[in-house]
């Protein structure tokens, strides 16, 4: 166990990551959350969508974001794009269905915004919601925080 910890700290040093992670990742109170770790910031019939602090922390440094086109339709629970980090591409899923009205093109040149500012500058798409009843099945910030704690406890 001790040698493994020593090993892990050497590996962490090489990878330039901190072993001393926060106990839990941050959430924004009035956002809604999906169990696939995306958030939705609802404003009337529109929602801005991105991935959570928990998600970006578990992904590592994002080096590439595959963005959808404006005008495309997203469906709740289906992937609309992907992010690449540490040689892993991970799909990103729509928490709600709708039509994409805006895409954060800054992510093409600055994919790291997702890590640095997952809830603000790292937003991914903005949609016009097609079915607002879908919002009911999303978690609030407290439920999502508990969900993350349970998930992390598995390991």
């Amino acid at each position: 166990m001790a040698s493994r910890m020593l090993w892990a700290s050497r590996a962490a040093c090489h990878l330039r990551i901190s072993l001393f992670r926060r106990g839990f990742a941050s959430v924004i109170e009035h956002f809604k959350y999906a169990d696939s770790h995306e958030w939705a910031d609802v404003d009337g019939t529109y929602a801005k969508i991105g991935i959570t602090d928990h998600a970006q922390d578990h992904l590592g440094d994002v080096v590439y974001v595959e963005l959808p086109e404006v005008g495309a339709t997203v469906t709740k629970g289906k992937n609309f794009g992907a992010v690449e980090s540490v040689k892993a591409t991970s799909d990103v899923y729509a928490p709600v269905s709708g039509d994409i009205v805006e895409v954060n093109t800054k992510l093409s040149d600055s994919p790291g915004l997702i890590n640095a500012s997952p809830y603000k500058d790292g937003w991914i798409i903005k949609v016009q919601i097609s079915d607002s009843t879908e919002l009911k099945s999303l978690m609030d910030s407290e439920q999502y925080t508990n969900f993350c704690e349970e998930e992390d406890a598995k390991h």
Partner: protein
Amino acid sequence: MIFDIYIVDLRIMSLQRKLQVWKMGIVNYLDALQLQQKLCSDRKTGKIPDTILSLQHPPTYTLGKRRTSHNLLVPEADLKNIGAELHYTERGGDITFHGPRQAVVYPIISLRDIGLGARKYVETLELAMIELASLYGVIARPGGKCETGVWVGDEKIGAIGVKISLGITCHGLAFNIDPDLNYFNHIVPCGILDKGVTSLRRETRLDLPADEVIQKELIQCLARLLRYDAIEWREDESYLFEVYGIK
């Protein structure tokens, strides 16, 4: 009372984390990709347990999602002349080469079941290769920032490229046992200039056993790191191809 204990026993058995490993030979890249996609789909619905494919490829170059074809240094048309194929994939990572005598491992596993994120999973793949190398007295290390993979000094011995969909992994890792390293001259491996590649054969002073033995050891390292309780080894790859309608 005894009945209660029997029920508890069964529950503990079902809580055991099981891994099914398919020991395969040299598999065409597209066949393996098709197989992974079908296994991934079955894993998502819980039809199959966590599964690993252990195999080798004929000479094959692959590109990741970012399509960094500028890192292929010869015209695509020339690849046939050197007996190699080129394929575009959805995995993370840059351009790489797969070929005989290189251990390729494709885990199709549920990260959500074990609460692992992409970063931790990739670190575990790196650790497995590092542990394997150490069995042969080779000291390998993970790369620095943006240099995911496993290195001996400044040369890469193991590469990683993964795709995660609904928490299920596919693609995986490639570890150089003793492939023909000349094939790497035709690319900028993983898009990293001025760093070369190496192999276990080059780095170890020990005699190497058959590839099959080394591949099994690699899987065992990975299974232990991912905390599986039991491994089921399967060798009837023809059954797998038949069930999934490949070839």
